[in-house]
C-alpha cells in the first residue's frame, strides 16, 4: 500500500514537472518568434522610443499585472502621463503576448513615485480590434479639416505609431473657454470625427487656454478596461462638461 502511494506520488510529480517544462518551452518558442521586443525590457524600450515620452519612469511585471510608475508634476500633467502610461502598457502587452492571443499579462496598474495606486486599482487588458494603421499625416489632416467646426485653434498635432497609430492634439478654444468646456462633447466630437475607425485608435486631446492654462483633457485607450476600450478625462475641480459623464451641468447633482 505504501509502495503504491509512493509510486503514484512520484508519477504525479513527474507529470507536473513535464507539464511545466512543456509550458516553459512554449513560452520560449513564442518569445523567440516575436521579434526584438519580446522581452519586457525590450518592449518597454521600443514603446518609449516610439511614443517619445518620458512620463513613465519604470515598468515591472508582478504576476499577471504590469505596473507602471507615472511621473507627476501637477494634476493635469499627471493626467496626461496616465494616458501615456496606459498606451505604453497596452503596447507592451501586445508586443510580448503569445501568438495564440492568450495574454500573460491580464492587468495594467499605474502608481505614483511613492508606489501609491493612482488609478483605483488594476485594470483589465482587453482585446485589440485589428485596424488599418493610420496613414502618415492623418492627424494633421484631421486637425486642419475639423478645427473650424470644433471652434479651436490647434496648437500642436502629434501622430504616434503604437496601437495602430493615434492622434494627440493640443488645442485652444476660439470661443469663451468656460462655454467651450461646458459644451465640449460636441466640439471635441467635431474635432475627431474624421479619424478612421476611431474607437480602435488611441487619441488624446488636451484643451488649454490661450495662456496654456489646462481646461480639459479627453483621451481614449483601445484594449484596456471595457470591451470597446477606455476613455479618460481630466476636468478642473467643480467644472462641468458634456464631455465627461456625471459632471454636467450640475456637478454630481444637487449642487
Amino acid at each position: 500500500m505504501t509502495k503504491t502511494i509512493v509510486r503514484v506520488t512520484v508519477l504525479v510529480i513527474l507529470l507536473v514537472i513535464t507539464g511545466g517544462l512543456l509550458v516553459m518551452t512554449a513560452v520560449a518558442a513564442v518569445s523567440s518568434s516575436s521579434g526584438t521586443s519580446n522581452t519586457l525590457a525590450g518592449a518597454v524600450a521600443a514603446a518609449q522610443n516610439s511614443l517619445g515620452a518620458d512620463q513613465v519612469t519604470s515598468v515591472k511585471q508582478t504576476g499577471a499585472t504590469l505596473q507602471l510608475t507615472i511621473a507627476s508634476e501637477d494634476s493635469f500633467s499627471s493626467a496626461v502621463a496616465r494616458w501615456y502610461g496606459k498606451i505604453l502598457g497596452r503596447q507592451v502587452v501586445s508586443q510580448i503576448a503569445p501568438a495564440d492571443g492568450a495574454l500573460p499579462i491580464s492587468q495594467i496598474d499605474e502608481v505614483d513615485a511613492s508606489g501609491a495606486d493612482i488609478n483605483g486599482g488594476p485594470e483589465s487588458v482587453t482585446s485589440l480590434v485589428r485596424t488599418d494603421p493610420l496613414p502618415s499625416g492623418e492627424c494633421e489632416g484631421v486637425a486642419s479639416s475639423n478645427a473650424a467646426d470644433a471652434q479651436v485653434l490647434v496648437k500642436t498635432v502629434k501622430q504616434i505609431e503604437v496601437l495602430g497609430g493615434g492622434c494627440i492634439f493640443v488645442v485652444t478654444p476660439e470661443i469663451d473657454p468656460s462655454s467651450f468646456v461646458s459644451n465640449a462633447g460636441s466640439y471635441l466630437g467635431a474635432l475627431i470625427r474624421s479619424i478612421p475607425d476611431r474607437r480602435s485608435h488611441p487619441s488624446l486631446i488636451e484643451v488649454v487656454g490661450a495662456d496654456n492654462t489646462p481646461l480639459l483633457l479627453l483621451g481614449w485607450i483601445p484594449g484596456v478596461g471595457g470591451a470597446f476600450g477606455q476613455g479618460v478625462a481630466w476636468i478642473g475641480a467643480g467644472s462641468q462638461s458634456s464631455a465627461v459623464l456625471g459632471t454636467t451641468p450640475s456637478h454630481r447633482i444637487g449642487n
Partner: protein
Amino acid sequence: MSLRRSLLGFLLCISTALSCAQLANAQNGGQAARYTTGGGYLGTRATISGSGATNSTGLVFAAVAIQDNVSGGTKMLQIGELQITYDDYANDCNQALNVVGIAVERTTDGVNYTCDFWSTADTRFGVNHRIAVVAPGSGGWDAYLDGNRLEGPFTLGMSGGYPIARAEAFWTTTAPSYNVTWGPSGYTPWQYTTNHGNTYTTIVNSGAAASSSGWNLDNTPSPFRIYR
C-alpha cells in the same frame, strides 16, 4: 460659367453658415437624479427600462451610482446604459460613435474620470438590464451587469456612499424623448444594501434633483420614472 460659380459659391456659403450655426447653438441637456437622504450604504441596484434618444443628436444615459456625497462629491462609481445617436459627439465613455453600450465610470478625486465602455448582446437601449454598484466584503467597489461582476474591485477611497439613480441627456439640435423607469414592475426595484450585497432593501424615501429644466421625476419607491 460665371453664373454657375456664383451659384455654387452662394450654396457653399449657405451650407457653411448652417453648419456653423448648428455648432454655435447652445448645447442643451443636463441630468436629473434621485438620491438617498443619507449615506454610508454599501451598494445599490435596479433594473432599468425605457426609451430615449428618439430623433435626438446627442446622448442619453441611465445609471445607478454610489458616490461620497450628493453635493460636491469627489468619489464615484456608476454603471449605466449609454446611447449616443450622433457621430460628432465625444465624451469620456465613447469616441463619437452612434452606439448603445454599458458605461462604467469612476473617479477618485472629482478631477480625473475613467470610463470603460462595454457592448451587450442586445444593443437596444432600455431593455431591462439590472445594474448594480456594490462594495464586496473584500474591499473596493464592483460594477455588476445582470448579476455578473463586470468590473472591479476599484479602490475609490470611500467605505460607503449615497445610492443615486441618475439620468443624463445632452443634445445639440433635437431633444431626445427620454423616458426611463428604475425598477419596472416585475423586475428589481431601485434598492440599497448595507451588508455588501447579501440582502437589498427597496428605497422608499429619496431626494430629487434636476440640473436643468424639462426633467420630471416620479416619486420613489420603484417603479419610478425620470423623463422629459
